[in-house]
């Protein structure tokens, strides 16, 4: 286990540098003059451009720029946005909101997906099974923004149950519908994963033993079957939190949630390379770490898995 963790950590290092370098290079090569239009309608003065070029080390070779920038990141110096705000402050207000949304989404996804998966996995081929199969197909086919607008239209505009856009610092209850939207596509995968996992383990010897011992059906399912079937699902859900951190851009846009996605999107559109790079780096870091933790968790949760 220790060696496995160490190897995974070592493998993460080139990936980390590769991904952040890719982003650094891509974002700074956004078309157009990086500082055009930053001084109102006039052209920027040469002294301002010189200062900015110096601040972001743009006169150095690319690789030197990158390492200077990474060195700043390591010291938690994320720089400022072009309007003078600290990037770290922007992040500290936006990150918790996105995280909240991701948590709500994963919870909804887990509860609905696992319930559907267990019910269908125990009774394959039944009416419920077919119904869930068809509805998961539909869920996979509906792009997130279509689901988003549909629910916003029905709940927000037509029935007036929710506010179409959430407040600046949203509570958990405000995030239920956006969370449902974010979770909609992935719910289908969870329910199918659970279904096949349950169906496979249902034939296992330990389940037969448990039934033969005279345990009730409920106990067999909840203690023996679920515990062994849920391992891959829990790890899948864990990785989802990482995905949602960077993938909530569409949902955040639809419901006007002031999370990381919106900040990054605005910054990319406004060609603010100095803001995009640190935020995207942080998101990628979270994403990669979430995947690593999930992999390690897998080994901890399932003692049958031996690495090395």
């Amino acid at each position, binding site marked *: 286990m220790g060696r496995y963790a160490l190897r995974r950590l070592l*493998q993460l290092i*080139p*990936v*980390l540098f*590769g*991904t952040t370098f*890719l*982003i650094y290079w*891509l*974002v700074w*090569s*956004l*078309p*157009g003059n990086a500082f055009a239009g930053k001084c109102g309608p006039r052209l920027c003065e040469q002294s301002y451009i010189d200062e900015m070029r110096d601040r972001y080390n743009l006169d150095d070779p690319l690789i030197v720029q990158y390492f200077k920038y990474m060195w700043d990141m390591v010291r938690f110096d994320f720089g400022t946005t072009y309007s003078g705000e600290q990037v770290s402050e922007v992040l500290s207000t936006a990150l918790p909101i996105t995280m909240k949304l991701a948590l709500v989404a994963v919870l909804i996804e887990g509860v609905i997906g696992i319930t559907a998966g267990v019910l269908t996995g125990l009774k394959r081929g039944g009416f419920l099974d077919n119904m869930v199969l068809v509805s998961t*197909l*539909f869920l*996979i*086919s*509906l*792009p*997130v*923004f*279509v689901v988003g*607008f*549909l629910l*916003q*239209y029905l709940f927000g*505009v037509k029935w007036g149950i929710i506010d179409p856009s959430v407040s600046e610092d949203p509570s958990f209850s405000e995030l239920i519908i956006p969370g449902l939207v974010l979770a909609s*596509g*992935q719910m289908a*995968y969870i329910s*199918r*994963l659970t279904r*096949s996992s349950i169906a496979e383990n249902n034939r296992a010897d330990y389940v037969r033993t448990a039934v033969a011992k005279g345990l009730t059906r409920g106990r067999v399912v909840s203690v023996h079957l679920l515990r062994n079937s849920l391992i891959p699902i829990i790890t*899948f859900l864990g990785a989802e939190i*990482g*995905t949602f*951190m*960077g*993938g909530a*851009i*569409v949902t955040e*846009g*639809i419901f006007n949630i002031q999370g990381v*996605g919106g900040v*990054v*999107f605005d910054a*990319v*559109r406004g*060609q603010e390379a100095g803001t*995009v790079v640190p935020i*995207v780096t942080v*998101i*990628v870091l979270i*994403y*990669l770490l979430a995947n690593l933790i999930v992999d390690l968790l897998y080994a901890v949760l399932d003692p049958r898995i031996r690495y090395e």
Partner: protein
Amino acid sequence: MSDPGAFTNERETEEQQHAPEPFLGEEEAPPSGKQEKARGLWSDAWYDLRRKPLFWVSITLIVIFMLMALFPSLFTSTDPYAFDLSKRTDGPESGHIFGYDLQGRDVYARSVYGAQVSILVGLVAALGVGLVGGAAGIIAGYYGGWIDAVLSRIGDVFFGLPFVLGAIVLLSTFIDPTKSGDPTKIKVVVILAIVVLSWPQFARVMRSSVIATKQSDYVQAARALGAGHTRIMVRHILPNAISPLIVMTTIALGVFVGVEATLSFLGVGLRPPIISWGIAISDAQTYLDIAPHMLLVPAAFLSAAVLGFVMLGEAVREAIDPKLK
């Protein structure tokens, strides 16, 4: 993007490799005669597929959308660019069953013409991802060692970028967001962005499938007979290891149609004058409360197209996955 690979775990790929070639010819078949003819993996899958209603529903949908993409004039005689500003955001009327959009253009005609670019992008991107991911997977899985390590790490770098975020950055870098640009170039960039960001998943699936196949006796036998690496890879491993990749690519086709719409919706992908469902939905979003048809019609077209391809992938998966029989 979600992970379609979640379906195909290594165990099932191992199992389906052992479907034997039909080396029992007609003459050698058991004398009873009434017994079913031995079929190979692919003809067996086709035999299964033909009996599935899911397959026929999906094929019907796909044929409709393909026709729509190739010959939009079969479905509508209205010019999708013709506009009548006095009718902007108007609801349905005779001859214009789905009403008008923001510029007073026919929503139905624009939805029909929107099929073309979405299906083109989805098809080419899925082919590209299948080729790139498949090639990388087979090379990494077959050679192993440092080649595998290097390819896997390169894949990890792209896998480390969350899809939508990566696509926004990539597309904004290569297409100037402030200009309308050359439509062909934009389509190419969108396809390339999808391929670059999704191939690692396909490579991973192919790699594990190849590793499982590599150990088979027939591969050992081919090697003992002196077959070269290329011949072993192409003639022996590829046909036996490719089925999970085919399933994944078919499902991805549908998913990519949705991805194209998502990117166009965000304003970083295709842009007018290209007619696309994503652009139509994006234009309609602020008028949701007064003219919902402007959003719901293209959204319905989009979802039906994605559904068609995803269902086909589903049907193919059930046909070649022995675990479900």
